[in-house]
């Protein structure tokens, strides 16, 4: 599989799976404004999924559509980072996961839109970047307000940070695919995104009065198809209809 296809899958699977997780909140958020915001975030992410997986299918050239890629692959062919498949937990965990991802996602899309030598990648990134900037603004703001809110909201946000922290490193670990992409100028070296992310995240967490966890362990595997046990359950729900009615169109 070409590095570019792999890259588009990684981007699209991140947004697909995170969009799925976020959409699980529908009707269950702590306040109506969050119901609206979460649906909106999920909607943006699914829209981006259509673009990235559409690109993956197009470059692959075997006639697979974005829907085929979303609905007909099993877990070991998914390329998202583990962070985005982690269960929603309480709203604090959902929000923290979103913030940690948004910070990376926005930096990544910004780089791609400004620098990618592959026109189609840059174009998708340009469309997605504005949405990601808005997601990041929103999630940073809430992390700050809840981190520096009540004792309980502080504790929950600190727990959420600890809960997800060891899953952030995977976003910055390069493999052969990344090396090839970086060399071609299509995508950045993942490690090169780390200082920017550290600075951004560090600033928000400081304002949120949250302490950065000490562990620097890195849980990884998602980007090469080794996921947590959670992904299979996500896919069982998500893919039910196309799997059960393979001849139907919807």
């Amino acid at each position, binding site marked *: 599989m070409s590095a570019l296809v792999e890259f588009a899958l990684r981007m699209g699977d991140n947004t697909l799976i995170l969009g799925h997780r976020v959409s699980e909140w529908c009707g269950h958020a*702590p306040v109506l404004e969050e119901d609206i915001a979460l*649906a909106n975030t999920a909607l943006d992410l699914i829209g981006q999924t259509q673009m990235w997986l559409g690109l993956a299918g197009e470059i692959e050239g075997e006639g697979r559509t974005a829907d085929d890629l979303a609905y007909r692959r099993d877990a070991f062919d998914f390329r998202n980072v583990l962070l985005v498949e982690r269960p929603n937990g309480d*709203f604090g965990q959902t929000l923290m996961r979103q913030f940690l991802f948004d910070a990376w996602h926005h930096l990544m899309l910004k780089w791609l839109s400004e620098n990618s030598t592959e026109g189609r990648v840059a174009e998708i990134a340009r469309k997605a970047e504005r949405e990601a900037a808005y997601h990041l603004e929103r999630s940073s703001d809430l992390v700050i*307000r809840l981190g520096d809110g009540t004792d309980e909201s502080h504790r*929950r946000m600190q727990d959420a940070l600890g809960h997800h922290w060891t899953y952030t490193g995977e976003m910055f670990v390069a493999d052969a695919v990344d090396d090839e992409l970086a060399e071609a100028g299509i995508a950045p070296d993942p490690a090169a995104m780390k200082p920017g992310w550290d600075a951004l995240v560090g600033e928000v967490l400081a304002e949120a009065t949250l302490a950065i966890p000490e562990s620097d362990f890195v849980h990884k595997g998602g980007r090469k198809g080794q996921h947590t046990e959670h992904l299979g359950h996500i896919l069982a729900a998500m893919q039910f209809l196309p799997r059960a009615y393979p001849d139907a169109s919807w």
Partner: protein
Amino acid sequence: DEQERAFQDRIDRGEKIEPQDWMPEGYRKTLIRQIGQHAHSEIVGQLPEGNWITRAPTLERKAILLAKVQDEAGHGLYLYCAAETLGISRDEMTEQLHAGKAKYSSIFNYPTLTWADIGAVGWLVDGAAIMNQVALQRTSYGPYSRAMVRICKEESFHQRQGYSIMMKMASGTPEQRRMAQDALDRFWYPSLMMFGPSDKDSVHSAQSMAWKIKVSTNDELRQKFVDQTVPQAEYLGLTVPDENLTWNEEKGGYDFSEPDWQEFYDVLAGNGPCNADRMAARRTAWEDGAWFRDGLVAHANKRAAQRMAAE
């Protein structure tokens, strides 16, 4: 008395009543109840559709459904704001809902069992809602009327999307066709019930009509809905589950069977298929979210105190 007569005259002249205007307590209370109920319906209405978001069969259908549910939450927001102009807070209304004191549309106590139900909800349930809402654009209370104008635009879009799902299903594989017919079978009568009991049994109607809180009667709207919907069902090649359905040339509309009103009252009394689940979901969301709301308030207070200190 004098004031009430002047108020009624304004309404009769077609003037809009605005929040700062004098109004009878009954008018205020009835409006709060009705707008609150409408707002709650938008909120609870997220749940049956939310049940299929994670299982939507294509990315596009998933996106459309997400957008729709987002709109509905937005409608809830407009409506709570409209009700707040009458001197009740959103939190109070939410508590009334959770305590079982305020109602929401009974239709949302029916389950969504197949993907075709998502189509049927858009086509029939939103269709019935629009019938009501279009009329309410002319309601006498300004903020409510303006909320209805906004909402109607989006709802008609939702209805078309629902119908488009039904088209796909009804012209799809035999299983899809079966789901489509099954959805119509299950949602037909509950949709008819959405207009409320027959005029002769409707409690609050006369005064509400005079105040233009209600603009059409239940039976008028129901008839209109049937007349609009039957040809759509025919176009889909689906059968309306009513053996008595016939065109009545004389009245220029369909004759049709009454829904089972006992079922209506059962659902209203809490015995619908999903009442308990819906209320449990809402209560849990609210209770589990208390720390979140408290956290935001505490932060806002801290910031306000900082600003005060800095001044």
